[in-house]
């Protein structure tokens, strides 16, 4: 961890530099938000849909984070993380990780192997926009997102001519982040290149409650202070974008994102075996390519997209065996290749009536193999989707959105998925909308669910759900201030929910066993503006999620009936306060979850129960201009109150830690 004294002097030096101008970002983005909000709330294409975008400034400031942190700090999505840089999965409205679909520039990047996305592998630095679609609002792009969808993307700035940006982060536990961006172009053609490298030894210390040191004389038992060893992670990659604009009606985009991540999963904290046993490593090589052509005329919009996602996932677990050296116990490889294509067409008959149709044709191939156990599978899947939507606006006060999606998996039709949504504007001209929808959705079993060896169940049915939602949003600007507030109640009932259970044969198999009911309330409020020379931004979200298992009890004594699903908190919320003045800014972030259970019977012994979580971070920074360079220095304190905690059973988390980032832009 860099010496505190050095950091202090750096900050002091930056504060003393004269601020030449207000940084460009603040004023520009403030203006944009005011203009867009009112109209954007009432578009007929999204009638009945709850959507929210993460503020662009938050994305820019969070460049050194991964998407898991960005979501948990700014949205009601619950992220279950196994630690810094470790697997992080989402639970959107109390659903399973595979029920949140993630799209990068419109292309789904959920793994066909397990249906999930590991959010710790997506650096925020690569993203220009992050938009959430809640629940069935995700049906506009595809099925399967029973909890919702998270849409991350890259946008083009046609005004840009040439720019270079470099970001350096240095943090506790030997954490080093480097990001470089180069962009060049003109009003017709643009290129943007981003490369990055992140590393952390992640070797924080903690009191290890899982190990007992027994005094040989007195017999007194104490816990040692241990280091989180074998937990380093490394990630590096490249994102290359090309954009071409022809005649103001056509835009062609080509994007390539390649990334390699290497990490180890730390051994159990109570592990007291030999140093060279149970060593492991996981490498993820992700390769994504997306090519799209968007064209629009006075009355129509058309998009043609073709893309590729590929993944190589390797995991090994080795033990040191006397006389033999390191011998693998598990040596598993997974290779995935997917080709995804979409053609969509949107036609406006009149200002108040439009029709959209789209066709998807995707091919997935997965091959997995464990060379030690000799097991694996090699399967492919063809997925097609037909989509039709009719949207009508009535008197500028009521929008109606009717959508229908029909999927075919390996050319067999699944149940059609309808959606009816309404937006109503009670007061004409005011940015106040009441919205509601009712829809069906389903999620097809992943390839691991069907074919994993041993245990995959090819007879699995799709998970099917109904959902309904009612909510309201209001936006109002007064003077230099802007207020946005919203509240939504949702209900969803999912049948044939897939869970993996141990079979008496000694391995686990997935079964359509549960009926899950999730319901709850989401609320958010955002206020921003300026008080004299001080700019401020306050954002808070809260979600109450009741997600319970109502599947048939398996046997007398099965206590899981009617209980909250594991790891889903009933209450969650976050709060952000940001102040800026003359290029100097400070942000306070708070994130909390209520208790979580780790057993299906919601047992709350000290062994099974996760206490409520409250996390506080504070950051301060200064942006300034030196000749032609924009620079910024930012210092973040994570875990402000140095709390001892764990978010997954007995996996200790770091205490107070720091990150210093420096940004230079030309």
């Amino acid at each position, binding site marked *: 961890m860099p010496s505190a004294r050095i950091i202090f002097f750096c900050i002091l030096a930056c504060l003393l530099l004269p601020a030449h101008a207000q940084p460009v970002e603040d004023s520009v983005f403030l203006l944009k938000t005011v203009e867009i909000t009112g109209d954007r709330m009432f578009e007929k294409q999204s009638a009945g849909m709850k959507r929210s975008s993460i503020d662009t400034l938050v994305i820019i400031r969070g460049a050194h984070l991964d998407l898991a942190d960005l979501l948990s700090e700014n949205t009601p999505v619950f992220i279950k993380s196994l630690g810094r840089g470790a697997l992080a999965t989402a639970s959107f409205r109390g659903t399973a990780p595979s029920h949140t679909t993630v799209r990068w520039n419109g292309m789904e990047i959920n793994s066909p192997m397990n249906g999930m996305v590991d959010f710790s592998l997506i650096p925020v630095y690569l993203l220009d926009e992050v938009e959430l679609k809640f629940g069935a609002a995700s049906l506009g792009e595809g099925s399967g997102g029973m909890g919702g969808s998270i849409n991350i993307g890259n946008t083009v700035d046609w005004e840009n001519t040439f720019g270079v940006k470099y970001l350096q982060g240095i943090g506790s536990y030997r954490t080093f982040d480097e990001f470089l961006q180069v962009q060049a172009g003109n009003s017709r053609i643009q290129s943007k290149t981003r490369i990055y490298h992140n590393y952390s030894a992640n070797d924080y210390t903690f009191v290890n409650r899982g190990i007992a040191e027994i005094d040989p004389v007195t017999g007194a038992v104490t816990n040692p202070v241990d280091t989180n060893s074998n937990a380093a992670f490394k990630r590096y990659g490249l994102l290359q974008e090309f954009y071409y604009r022809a005649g103001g009606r056509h835009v062609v985009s080509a994007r390539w994102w390649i990334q390699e991540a290497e990490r180890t999963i730390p051994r159990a904290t109570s592990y007291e075996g030999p140093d060279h046993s149970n060593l492991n490593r996981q490498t993820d090589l992700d390769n994504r390519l997306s090519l799209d052509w968007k064209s629009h005329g006075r009355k129509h919009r058309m998009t043609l997209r073709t893309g590729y996602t590929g993944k190589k996932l390797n995991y090994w677990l080795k033990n040191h065996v006397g006389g033999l050296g390191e011998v693998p116990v598990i040596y598993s490889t997974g290779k995935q290749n997917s080709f995804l294509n979409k053609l969509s067409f949107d036609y406006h008959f009149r200002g108040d009536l439009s029709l959209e149709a789209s066709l998807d044709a995707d091919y997935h191939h997965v091959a997995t193999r464990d060379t030690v156990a000799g097991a694996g599978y090699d399967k492919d899947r063809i997925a097609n989707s037909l989509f039709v939507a009719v949207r009508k606006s009535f008197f500028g006060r009521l929008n109606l959105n009717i959508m229908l999606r029909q999927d075919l998996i390996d050319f067999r039709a699944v149940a059609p998925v309808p959606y009816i949504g309404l937006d109503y504007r009670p007061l004409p001209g005011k940015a106040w909308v009441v919205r509601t929808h009712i829809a069906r959705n389903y999620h097809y079993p992943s390839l691991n669910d069907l074919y994993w060896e041993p245990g995959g169940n090819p007879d699995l049915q799709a998970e099917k759900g109904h959902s309904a939602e009612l909510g309201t949003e209001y936006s109002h600007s007064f003077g230099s201030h802007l207020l946005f507030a919203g509240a939504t109640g949702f209900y969803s009932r999912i049948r044939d929910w897939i869970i993996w259970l141990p079979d008496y044969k000694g391995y686990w198999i997935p079964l359509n066993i549960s009926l899950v009911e999730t319901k709850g309330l989401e609320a958010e409020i955002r206020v921003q503006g300026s008080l004299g020379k001080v700019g401020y931004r306050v954002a808070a979200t809260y979600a109450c999620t009741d997600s319970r298992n109502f599947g048939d009890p398996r046997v*007398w004594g099965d206590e899981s009936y009617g209980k909250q699903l594991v790891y889903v908190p009933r209450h969650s919320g976050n709060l952000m306060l940001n102040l800026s003045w003359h290029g100097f800014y400070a942000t306070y972030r708070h994130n909390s979850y209520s208790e979580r259970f780790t057993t299906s019977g919601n047992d*709350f012994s000290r062994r099974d129960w996760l206490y409520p979580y409250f996390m506080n971070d504070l950051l301060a920074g200064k942006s300034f201009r030196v000749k032609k360079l924009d620079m910024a220095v930012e210092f973040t304190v994570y875990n402000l109150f140095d709390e001892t905690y764990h978010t997954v059973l007995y996996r200790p988390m770091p205490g107070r830690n720091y990150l210093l980032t420096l940004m230079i832009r030309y």
Partner: protein
Amino acid sequence: MMKKLFLLFLPLLLTACMKDDELWKKGPQPYGQSPSGVFIINEGNFMFENASLSYYDIKNRQVYNDVFFNANGMPLGDVAISMEIRDSLGYVVLNGSGRIYVIDIRSFELKGKITGFTSPRYLHFVNDKKAYVSDLYARAVSVVDPELQLITAGIDVNNNFPGFYQHPTEQMLQHGRFVFTNCWSFDNKVLVIDSELDRVVDSILVPAQPQSMVADRHGSLWVLSDGGFEGNPFAHERAALLRINADTYEVEESYLMGLDDMPSELGITGGGDTLYFLNRHVFRFVINSSGSPEVFIESPYGNQSSGGFYGLGIDPANSDIYVADAIDFVQAGIVYRFRPDGMPADTFRVGIIPGSFCFRY
């Protein structure tokens, strides 16, 4: 102790709110226990470190859960597989934590530990000064000094069998100077170790995946093999129960079961004359009787493909049968206690994935 704390947007300057320290305090101790009881060793979920020890007072029919956590203010560890008692000390083998905890069997307090194992499974006392610890991945059986609580040597069981990780070692039984150990995972051998030379001297070929074994009143070895399962790259054969002569290593009796059977948890009464095992249901077989093993207690799971009984213990004093049910493996399990005639005598809840039993007298 239900804590439902909910935070509304109370901003700022909250002092430490996550009461992690409160978790690590000692809890209530069981009082007035009768001398006889049984420890239920709850495995917990792998890497979750939620293994636990439950204690059931046989006479008073009272169960106490998390006895180790409550007595010591710290968790037991990760994946507890088995327990042995010798001289008022209990030795709990923690497969996921690579160690054996030594506890006082009355107060449940931690008295010592033996560390340095890769993936330990069972402990067997050869004498007061030497014990063997079997291991799943170390390809060696560790030799430990229980008084010094140290590993002193290792018995190499490396097989160099291409394609499979052999030999894993599981339970151990002693006959004279020889210790037999079954090799279960992707394997089909019972190894013979000379306990004076600390070396493997022979092996016995048995049907695939010998899961458990017991010795009967005549000194014969009974081995229960599950035969593997469909898709198992090592083998898929019929499950079997064998009687092996412990001196000549010859198979004297064998009872074959179906290809889809996966029997486990072979147990024997204190008198050494009746065998029990799990094969979805509880099966019983009286040694030296004509006929073959029969269903004795039916599983409430019926023909559901998943679920079923997970652990089995036989009281050596009165031959009561304890059956452990892990339900869905992510909630508190249940133990059913039956009298030797099959009549239910008690039912109680324990920890997560109750897997084995250790009787205390």
